[in-house]
């Protein structure tokens, strides 16, 4: 019985270690993530985000429409 408890406690050492490491890796991976998800997060913070973007398409300086409410909306628009 005592041996079993001891073994469980010993097994817990690795489990605790793994839990700590997992937490740190999760934080680190998120902060370093170079994927579009991170870029999208950054884009959300631009002035054309949110409600304003839904009302009107954003127009870049060169006159090219760069943001539409959605691809489907754009297709419908063009079919018309």
């Amino acid at each position: 019985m005592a041996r079993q408890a001891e073994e469980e406690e010993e097994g817990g050492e690795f489990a605790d270690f793994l839990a700590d490491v997992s937490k740190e890796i999760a934080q680190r991976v998120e902060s370093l993530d170079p994927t579009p998800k991170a870029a999208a997060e950054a884009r959300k913070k631009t002035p054309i985000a949110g409600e304003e973007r839904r009302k009107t398409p954003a127009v870049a300086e060169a006159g090219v429409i760069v943001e539409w409410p959605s691809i489907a909306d754009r297709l419908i628009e063009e079919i018309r």
Partner: protein
Amino acid sequence: MSVVNYGTREITCKIVYYGPGRSGKTTNLQHVYSQLPEERKGKMVSLATETDRTLFFDFLPLDLGTISGFATRFQLYTVPGQVYYAATRKLVLQGVDGVVFVADSQSRQLAENIESLQDLHANLADEGFDPRTIPLVMQYNKRDLPAGEISAVEDLDETLNFRGVPHYGAAAINGKGVFETLRSISSLVLSRLSAPATKG
């Protein structure tokens, strides 16, 4: 430096246990190995002489599974402590991400500790690492020996830990302080994880 590889979804970190002969480096790895659940137990490679001294090095691959979508592996190595295996120690340090310096707390081993620490610094510098900044943790092992035979942790720290890095008392033979040390060096290594440089 260890890298988060977003392409292959892998994280690999190499940690080396360094220190004088018979300070308990292999014992540290043996304790970690003994605590691994069966499904995670790979092979611990130990090349020892007939007298159980590490001849080449010990290698313990620690497969931590998939964490946040990344296959995560820690590779734990020891170096042979005896002075005449200098070339091996240098070889094992190649590509290291973090070092645990396992010091022998016995008062009569102080000179060996100092010599090994100097050897570590020289080899790190030779391998292109900055000994002043590489992740490092000090472990003062054999705290289970009689008080009259061992130096106080404060004294060891004053003599060996001039960088002021995290330090731990340990009795690796009983498993005491082993995971605390590993957790600490892992944390230091992970805090330096970087994304790979992008071409362009």
